[in-house]
């Protein structure tokens, strides 16, 4: 594995004037945002706000109508090996004939390139990644026999095996039990503490302030982006969620009161 990644002065992600449309229906409008390196970053917004689409646009999985994306100062194609993607758990068929270890080994396919097969060394790396997320004993399980939380851990292990510098995660906290949520959070904080950048689509407004350093508020257009302390405000949340839900503004108030208990390394 590479040691400490070389520093660049460029932000981890820079998005300029990005507009994305599915057919004729625009999903993201004129997004301008720069995300700093070495932080835990949440993308927050209502359903249909384009959160997953933003991740996919950064990865070049959906075409942009206008605008560009740079990852550590270069187009994504040049920085692929620096980036690990964790798709939504529901996006794949978990009855696919494969084991947990096989799925994690897929994290090394990018490094392997064409025509080379994973060997014992690669399987050891995959096993170590499974161990890091605490499910090494499930390596040989067929993936449909894993619980939702275990499946999420396997997906995370696949990204860890990539040993990336920037991780893009689509709802890593969705549909998992409390124990897994703690474990996943610990893992993400560990990555951040080693200088890695994690950008995660996040649904649970209650935990944003506790879990993340930086927040991107999105509702088809960019509402605001910045450190949680200054950006995750009631005012911004009302603008993001359209002010239609009083329950949400209450939640924001509750969060402001909880601010002092923010991340402990």
């Amino acid at each position: 594995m590479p040691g400490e990644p070389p520093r660049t002065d460029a932000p981890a992600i820079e998005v300029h004037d990005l507009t994305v449309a599915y057919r004729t229906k625009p999903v993201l409008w004129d997004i301008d945002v720069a995300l700093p390196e070495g932080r835990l970053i949440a993308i927050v917004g209502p359903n249909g706000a384009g959160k997953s689409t933003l991740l996919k646009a950064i990865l070049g999985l959906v075409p942009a109508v206008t605008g560009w994306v740079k990852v550590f100062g270069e187009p994504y194609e040049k920085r692929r090996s620096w980036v690990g993607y964790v798709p939504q758990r529901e996006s794949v068929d978990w009855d696919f004939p494969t084991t947990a270890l096989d799925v994690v080994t897929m994290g090394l396919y990018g490094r392997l390139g064409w025509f080379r097969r994973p060997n014992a060394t690669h399987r050891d790396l995959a096993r170590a990644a499974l161990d890091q997320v605490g499910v090494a004993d499930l390596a040989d399980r067929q993936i449909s026999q894993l619980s939702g939380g275990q499946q999420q851990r396997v997906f995370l292990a696949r990204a860890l095996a990539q040993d990336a510098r920037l991780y893009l995660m689509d709802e890593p906290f969705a549909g998992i039990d409390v124990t897994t949520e703690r474990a996943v959070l610990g893992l993400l904080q560990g990555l951040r503490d080693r200088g890695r950048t994690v950008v995660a689509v996040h649904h649970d407004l209650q935990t944003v302030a506790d879990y993340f350093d930086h927040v991107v508020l999105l509702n088809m257009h960019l509402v605001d982006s910045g450190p949680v302390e200054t950006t995750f405000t009631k005012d911004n949340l009302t603008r993001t969620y359209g002010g239609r839900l009083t329950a949400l503004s209450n939640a924001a108030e509750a969060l402001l009161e909880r601010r002092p208990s923010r991340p402990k390394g």
Partner: protein
Amino acid sequence: MPIDFDATLWIIVAGATMLGVIGGVIGCFALLRRQSLLGDSLAHAALPGVCIAFVVTGSKSPVPLLAGALVAGVLGSLLILAVVRTTRVKEDGAMGIVLSTFFGVGIVLLTWIQNRPGGNQSGLRHFLFGQAAALLAEDVVRMAILGVLVLAAVVVFYKEFQLITFDRDYAASIGLPVRTLEIGLTTLLVLVVVVGLQTVGVVLIIATLITPAVAARQWTNRLAWMLVLAAVIGGGSGAIGVLASAASQGIPTGPTIVLCSTALLGASLLFAPNRGIVQAWYGDRRLRRRIRHENLLKDIYSFGERRADFARPVSWPELMGLRGQGRHALGRRARDLRRRALVELDGDALRLTAAGRRAAERVVRKHRLWELYLTRRVDVASDHVHRDAEAMEHVLSDEATERIDALLGHPSTDPHGRPIPRPNAGDEAAR
């Protein structure tokens, strides 16, 4: 056209086996990528292509006819895409429309050709249900070339094909040319369908793709093994199908091959471990039996508890009254339990042995602990918990039971005030 058991026959067997092998392998990917219907649409759409190629070239030789099939098949699948893109019709609807339209046109052309002078000799009829007897050495060579191509592609690009099939977005994120690989897989699918038309026919070619793949999936949880098994099942069905068709003098080959693989599929669905119906059924039956046994033990125990006397035997009518069970069924369960030395017969009544009483206590303990857990921790009213506990008492593991016991602070009575039995020291040894 009957087949003689001679050198030609073995050529035909080789052809059908080859087709079965590559159909099985490519079928696995089609199945996992949910493209089963696409293969079927392609095949049906190929029929008018065959007919038009015959009219245009006037040739009976397979190469132009298969080229016609290829063109029509590809046109058909492009039309499906176009329908999905430009209208509100969904993919399955579009496939149904294109498949039936092309096939209808094909049948009209076929009938027209056959009614023309000499049309009967065209051999086009065989494209409907397949006629392996018409296979020549050169056809088999063509299949072998395609076979090598398919197997080589799957071996060389195994990890890429696996990844785009399992997780397309992730594959794209690490830089795999997903579109190109998908087009490659679909092209192989088209080629297998077209080459298989002569042998199996447009109506049934889908079975050579899907049936072996589904059967193989039953036996393994690894993609590599699924591919190997599908190849074996497909190839075997091809060989046996041709031989059976030859021996029967006149049954078309296609249906015979399909019936062979369907028989293997049936056996796989029934008998495969983990996914098989028989094992699931057997597991259910064992659980039901255990539940009946545990209920009888518990019933006998309940009389002993009420009378504060476990030595006094419980009579049949008393037990039959509890769950409205017949004397015969109850007797059979009692015999099972007696064989395991859990109950003993005393004249015409039943009594728990020491081991039987401990077994009953374990069930009662689970029942009452669960009731208490629901009332205390889940806030369910105490008059609502019995039915739930009736089910949980049979499935709760011993470890989970002890954890609940500890969580509740080792309680001594349930929400209804009845004592919760505690396993005594000799309990482990008795099991």
